[in-house]
């Protein structure tokens, strides 16, 4: 259902709920068949009202979803760049590990009389 159409229907349902309630107020015998028939209509109308409200909210969530998707791509890129920054420490770490290994090689070579 289109947005405007749903809005009009929702207003129509709300008006109908008010009209049913007013009619019920005017009936003295609250146990009468007429009163209960109106109550059945009232229940069906309020259930329909909640359904239309739900559809309205679904519409809002869909619009927010498409706006959020655009942000998602940017946040992914942002995290990639962050990972890039983290590699600075990793590069230095790798150099330290390589030099540590070199020291071991030199020591072993020296003790073996190679150097």
């Amino acid at each position, binding site marked *: 259902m289109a947005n405007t159409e749903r809005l009009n229907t929702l207003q129509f349902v709300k008006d109908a709920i008010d009209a049913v309630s007013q009619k019920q107020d005017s009936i003295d015998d609250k146990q009468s068949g007429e009163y209960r028939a109106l109550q059945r209509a009232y229940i069906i109308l309020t259930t329909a009202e909640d359904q239309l409200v739900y559809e309205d909210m679904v519409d809002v969530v869909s619009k927010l979803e498409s706006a959020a998707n655009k942000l998602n791509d940017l946040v992914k890129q942002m995290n990639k760049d962050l990972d890039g*920054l983290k590699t600075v420490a990793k590069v230095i770490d790798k150099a330290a590990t390589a030099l540590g290994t070199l020291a071991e090689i030199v020591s072993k070579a020296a003790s073996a009389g190679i150097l």
Partner: protein
Amino acid sequence: MISSQAVAIGFGLIFLFGSATGCVLTDSQLAEVKKFSTASQGYADVASEPIRQYGQLLVTPRLYDTTILDFNNTEDLKVAKDAFDAVKSDRDKFAALAKKLKGHLGVLDKYSEALTALTSEDLSKEVTKSAEDLGKAIDKDIKAVNGIRKAQGQAELSLIGEAVSSAVSTIGGWYLKVRQTELTKAYVDKMEPNISLIFEVIENEYSPKVCGQQKDLSKRIWEGFKKRAQASKIPSYSDTRAAFDGITAVSDAYALCTSVVENTIAYKGAHTALQTKLKDKVDLKEAIKEVSDFGKGMKALKDDYKTITAIDKK
């Protein structure tokens, strides 16, 4: 000899990188980014809650409505049974929709997290730690070579690990700060129009369609209670109490919903102000008002959210 050369090279490089510091954010600017990131955390939770609340709040009036039907009448019983079944599925439907919204808006929380990481000192600390390890590794190498030189009667080499470590740490630190600044500014700029898109929907659509509808539930609870009271002549305490609690819950939920909308407007204002204040390297003499106001508003909103969800769990 080698040691002083290394130090000289190190300081030369520091000077070179130091010239790039004109574009590094000041501590006061970084503090504002952090304040903004902290304030905006949890927005998805609170913004999705009003939709879940609607599903919870419709239960009381819908159940009231069935209690004045005659369950000995076939037609009444059928309507009552259908209505009873529909209440649960409708409540679950709204909860599922709220969860979906929370997932979509979660991108704003991810943005806050990335912004926090981008302006964090942790990256510099990691570089310092790696630089120290590098310095130790260099000294280990020199000591190994010195062992050989000593055996050959040659002069030992000076240990330069500490000097190299300090130079690398400083250079690496500056490099990170410059990149962190570039990225922070760039992403705040890029996010601005996209964040506005989300907030326009919240202001123009969410406000009437979620908050507006929520308010109407008070009327329905009262109607249901009134009819039930009229049918039984004298209302029971439990009915009266349920109506009172229901109407109070609607009022609290509506306040939360309008607060979400108000804080969304404040969020947008704070982000725009942040973008403006990050353009140039400036030592901010005072806090950014929009960011501070947003922080206060979000704190109050999160507190209300905790209260409402705690009541729900009871």
